[in-house]
């Protein structure tokens, strides 16, 4: 039921006339959603970065190697996680576990994790980021800016894309463009497929309006922004 409304809302948001109104509504809905979700997550599970560092063996096999590439669904660099928001990482792992986010390897790994493991890993990755910056909002005439405004991306992911309004949302600034493109394309996969797609209805409705070229432009621009997320190269002995 909720999904249906959100889909309809997506079409509503995509038509030009109601864009501003739609964006306002979206922000309001997200705030309410965030209030509803955030306390439930934070209730009793506290991430422990030190415990996460003991559990990250499988993660850093890919996410601990700079520019490491995976081959599915297309060849792309795996996302940089060090410095990413802890709550977002835990939430993403939870989505992989239940299959809302689809990627065979991630699903298999996340499937073996408890909520406590996810929180610990989130805390580990957030604390392991060497950078904590708050870059100024970029003022350029990059065509991507108009696209980002059209999608209302800043309203959740932050004006500089490094400070999302809710720690359960990802920092995007500086993230690998090829990963961002694959992730955005996954939200456009609305027909159920076993191994491709992401189920977040808000992102689905926001991304629907963009062509593949536009998504590529967005992704390239986001990668060029300064941000916290990096890959900390793992030790050769670990």
């Amino acid at each position, binding site marked *: 039921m909720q999904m249906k409304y959100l889909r309809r809302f997506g079409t509503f948001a995509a038509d030009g006339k109601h864009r501003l109104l739609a964006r306002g509504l979206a922000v309001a809905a997200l705030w309410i959603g965030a209030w509803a979700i955030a306390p439930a997550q934070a209730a009793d599970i506290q991430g422990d970065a030190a415990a996460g560092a003991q559990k990250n*063996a499988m993660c850093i*096999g890919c996410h601990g190697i700079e520019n490491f590439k995976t081959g599915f669904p297309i060849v792309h660099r795996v996302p940089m996680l060090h410095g990413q928001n802890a709550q977002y990482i835990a939430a993403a792992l939870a989505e992989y576990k239940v299959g809302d986010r689809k990627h065979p390897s991630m699903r298999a790994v996340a499937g073996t994790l408890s909520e406590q493991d996810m929180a610990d890993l989130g805390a580990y990755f957030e604390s392991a980021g060497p950078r904590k910056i708050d870059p100024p909002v970029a003022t350029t005439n990059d065509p991507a800016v108009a696209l980002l405004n059209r999608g209302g991306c800043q309203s959740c992911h932050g004006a500089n894309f490094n400070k999302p309004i809710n720690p359960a949302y990802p920092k995007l600034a500086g993230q690998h463009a090829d990963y961002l493109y694959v992730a955005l394309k996954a939200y456009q996969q609305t027909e159920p497929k076993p191994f491709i797609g992401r189920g977040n209805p808000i992102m689905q409705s926001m991304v629907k309006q963009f062509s593949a070229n536009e998504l590529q432009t967005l992704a390239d621009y986001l990668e060029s922004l300064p941000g916290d997320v990096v890959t900390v190269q793992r030790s050769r002995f670990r």
Partner: protein
Amino acid sequence: MNTPKRIAFGVAAATAPAVSMADYSFNFPDPVTPIAHETLHVHNLFMIVILVIFFAVFGIMIYSMWAHRKSRGHAAAGFVAPRSGKQWFWVSVPFAALLVIDYGVFGVPAYHAILSYEDTRTEADMVVKITGNQWLWQYEYPKEGIQFSSRLTTPRAQIDNEEAKGEHYLLEVDNPLVLPVGKKIRFITTSNDVIHSWWVPAFGVKRDAVPGFLREFWAKVDRPGTYRGQCSELCGKEHGFMPIVVHVLPEAEFNAWLAAQKAGSAAAPADASAPAPETPAADAQTKS
């Protein structure tokens, strides 16, 4: 000490460490499937034939060096082509002997072993799908609708040398594969990401798990027990940390395990529900 005593003492000293290595096996692990038996048989046969040829060739050579030396008036051969029928016969003997050994003595049992490895003539009693993943194994019983992941349980502290290593160091998992004894099982292997290889030495089987492909093999385990193996295709950072553990149970116990899994206790580790009949002999195999 006279010479014979010295020799006897030397031999005794050289072989003494073997006593302490009684548990150490140079040979194949104790086979528990028909294919593993055949593999061991082929291996032993090869060893015998090779040793016979080795001693025959070197025996003749060393004898000739001693008996046909120059000081006794022997001249080196001119190495011209064989002329008489008798010479042609002895030239063709090794050729014929090798043909018979390769295609007959070795070939027939090897062919038979491969047939049993790829045995599609009879129906399998059960299908198990094995999916390799960086870096754990997933098992699925498609007909029974059971699916679970099998992940290393060796504590990080043991790997980091902060604790003493356990008995099954790096060969222990949370949810082992559980199989019935004496049933023909069709294994299907595939992978989610890169090429892995599913290998249990005591079963005598090893199949690459290739992404995008389904590969298969058949096996029937004769004896209940716990069998351990490892991923045997280099698959990345945790390649050495994705072991395989198989519990082979008598049919009644297997059915009980199956019922427990179906009843929704899939989350509970199979270790708890399956009283593992650990046979030390079967268990010691992969450690050598």
